[in-house]
């Protein structure tokens, strides 16, 4: 049975330092929920509080409405996958996978069947009698996964499980993990600092920074409608342009005026975020920002331009090769067309989004 995980006003303190600062989250049954953020944001700390390895200074955590604050880690029935796999080096693959089942006094044919099933699911059955030292990183991670899911945990917790693998393997594994999770329907909480990974596998993402949740939402929402400049910058790439907004119009760098759907009656200094794919290079013309191409980097399916603006700052613009007019060179003078439906406007002081969707 997949469970709900509710995190209510949870605080983790080390002396005077708040690693987790009043976090409120509710994770739905069977959901693939990711805690995403830079190093030190509190995501792993929070995960370990759910696992039972970190104490909870204040607030409560519930599994399916049962408060688990005082339940010791070994009684929480969580499956945990660690960044460095944490496979028992002295046990074979089979004994590693069977470890949790044996602890639950599962014996005989049930033990063998469930262990074999998990190993076949993670495609490690052929290595069942090998020692961990004879396995590659990817294989060890699959053993760790099999070991964690075979016990039918309430919640599956994963702490940056793919960070130690090479790039190509990482992409393969994250697809496997996603498929596995969907088929088993276990509530999963996943920690990563890799925003691309988070976007690819999550049902919902909580972006964290300095112990707080900056934004909670589905990947598309987080990417397209960032709640503040931190999220806009952390996810994908953002160009930030300064301007002023009044009466639903943003004046960028004092050069172009663009209509935007912002809060009624807002007037003040703003920061506008434009992603590289939401700007295009045109010939120099009225009503567009002017710029000079500094670098053009051909990357196969798209070209990455670094363009200098009139105020000396520079922005990045990506153009798909199939869409572009022609390849620009350094020194070219260009006009920059912004996709006004896809820009986000933030108040310059609070850094929060003032968009109305």
């Amino acid at each position, binding site marked *: 049975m997949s469970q709900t995980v509710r995190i209510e006003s949870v605080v983790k303190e080390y002396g005077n330092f708040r690693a987790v600062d009043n976090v409120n989250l509710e994770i739905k049954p069977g959901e693939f929920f990711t805690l995403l953020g830079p190093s030190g944001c509190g995501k792993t700390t929070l995960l370990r509080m759910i*696992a039972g*390895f970190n104490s909870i200074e204040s607030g409560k955590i519930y599994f399916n409405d049962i408060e688990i604050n005082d339940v010791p880690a070994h*009684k*929480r029935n969580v499956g*945990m996958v660690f960044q460095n796999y*944490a496979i*028992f080096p002295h046990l074979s693959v089979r004994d590693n996978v069977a*470890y949790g089942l044996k602890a639950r006094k599962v014996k005989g044919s049930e033990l063998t069947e469930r262990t074999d099933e998990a190993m076949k699911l993670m495609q490690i059955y052929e290595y069942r009698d090998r020692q961990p030292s004879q396995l590659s990183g990817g294989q060890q991670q699959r053993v760790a996964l099999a070991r964690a899911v075979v*016990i039918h945990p309430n919640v599956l917790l994963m702490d940056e499980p793919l960070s130690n693998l090479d790039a190509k393997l990482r992409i393969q594994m994250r697809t496997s993990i996603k498929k596995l999770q969907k088929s088993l329907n276990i509530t999963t909480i996943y920690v990563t600092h890799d925003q691309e990974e988070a976007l690819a596998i999550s049902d919902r993402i909580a972006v964290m920074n300095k112990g707080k949740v900056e934004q909670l939402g589905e990947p598309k929402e987080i990417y397209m409608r960032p709640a503040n400049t931190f999220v806009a910058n952390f996810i994908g790439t953002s160009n930030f342009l300064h301007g002023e907004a009044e009466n639903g119009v943003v004046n960028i760098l004092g050069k172009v005026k663009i209509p935007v759907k912002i809060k009624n009656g807002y007037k003040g200094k703003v920061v506008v975020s434009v992603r590289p794919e939401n700007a295009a290079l045109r010939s120099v013309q009225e009503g567009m920002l002017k710029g000079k191409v500094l670098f053009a980097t051909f990357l196969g399916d798209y070209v990455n331009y670094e363009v200098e603006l009139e105020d000396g700052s520079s922005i990045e613009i990506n153009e798909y090769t199939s869409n572009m007019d022609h390849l620009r060179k350094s020194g070219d003078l260009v006009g920059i067309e912004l996709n006004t439906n896809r820009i986000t406007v933030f108040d310059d002081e609070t850094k929060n989004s003032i968009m109305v969707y």
Partner: protein
Amino acid sequence: MKNIGGKFQKLQKHLNFWNLVILIFLVLSAIFIIYPFGKMFLQSFTSATEEGFTLANYKTFFQKKYYYTALFNSMKICFVTTILATGLGVPLAYIGTRFNLYFKRIINIMIVLSMLSPPFIGAYSWITLLGRAGVITKLLASIGIEIGSIYGFKGIILVFTLKLFPLVYLYVSGALSSIDSSLEEASESLGVSGIKRMMKVTFPVIMPTILSAALMVFMTSLADFGTPRLIGEGYNVLPVIIYKEFLNEVGTNPSFASALSVLITLIAAFVLWVQKAIVDKKSYNMTALRPPVPVELPVGKKILATASVFIVAFLAVVPQITVVVMSFIKTRGPLFVRGFSLESYQNILSKLSTNIKNTFLFSILAIMIIVIIGLLGSYVIVRRKSKVTSFLDLLLMFPYVIPGSVIGICMIVAFNAHPLVLTGSMWIIVISYSIRKLPYTMRSSVGILYQIDHSVEEASISLGVPPMKTFFKTTMFLMLPGLLSGAILSFVNNINELSSTIILYTGKTSTISVAIFNAVNNDAFGNAAALSTILTFSTIICLLIFNKISGGKSVVG
């Protein structure tokens, strides 16, 4: 009402197994480390001649020439030994690691064997060879060559240097093998190669290791009792006069011996402080991704290099070889007569079987104790870090600065009266052995635990195995090979130990080392040889077991 329940719950939480362990260890440390050393320390301020607190003992030491020369002598021995052992060990280590030599395995075995054997066997062996009636002495005299006396200062230096240079050799070899090749390749590519590179890059990088090894040599030569006593022939060093004064004060409170003990401990503590202050600061953490590849020399140079290392290594094991050979020769008192004989063995097995039994019994009991302490102690120090456990760590390391003789005296001072009388029993010796090896065991156990990934334990807990069961089922299992190999080395040290045993033993609790000592003093050289051979072979067997368990790890870790 609710508050009391809450408080009781909190108390229960604190009354868990590990806190109990910490408590028990603190109590045991108080009884067997703080109390003995403290009592001895206080005793040094009492005197047979004066009432109450007095500095009489210390005054006597610094005023009487007989005593303060012992201090100078000790310092002389230590410094000269350290310089020679280092001067020998470092170049040999360089040759041994950087070049492909013939017989490399045999050389290593010889070096490790000489390091593990007790120095006093070396002392008496060299006497057998180069003493007044020595085999080689007579041989050379018959062809007209007179060699000088080996007794006194020269003999002590000879024995110590040959016994202790392996320490430097092994440590420095280890360091040289962990320099990543890229360090020296970078130097070469920048134009500094050959000897200059050796002086500017290689040696500075291994300097902390050289200094650490040198300091260990210093402390070992400072504390050794058997060698100066046997071959020194009246050359007074601190451990020897401590022993003499202790014998003088038997039946009374050994206050003067206590004062001497405090002094020698202070010197050892100072040396340790120097190490912490200077060496530790400069230590470099090196793990070689690409360790240096030994260079293949042209045949002529290869023979030369091999010969130089081989000869020195061979000299280091000459005592052991001598002793084994001697044990199978007929004896008449101090003289060896031609002819193979098992007489010596028959003698010792009939008369000294208790000693043999005691040596192994005491040592095994001691390592059982220290393995348990090492296991539990390292866990609380590493996984349950707190101010209390850091203090406990310090306490358990304290015996490191206390020379063997001093531990013996501390034990006597503490346990020859109520409330706890242990003198004369075997337990005082077992406890003494345990305390001596405690620092080494703690350091190596802590090191082992640090290498075990904490997440492996957390994985076990998350899978449903409670923390305590996880420890005994998984962590302990993973620590065992390291713990056992450390225990074996401690066992070897214990069976060979003399400095504290000679002070603590009685008729029923005598050991092999004491028997050897007495046999040499009584000119029963055959018995001494047979007993020494038993120790040597036990050492070799332990070394083989150690290699098996530790999978080729170095003896100096």
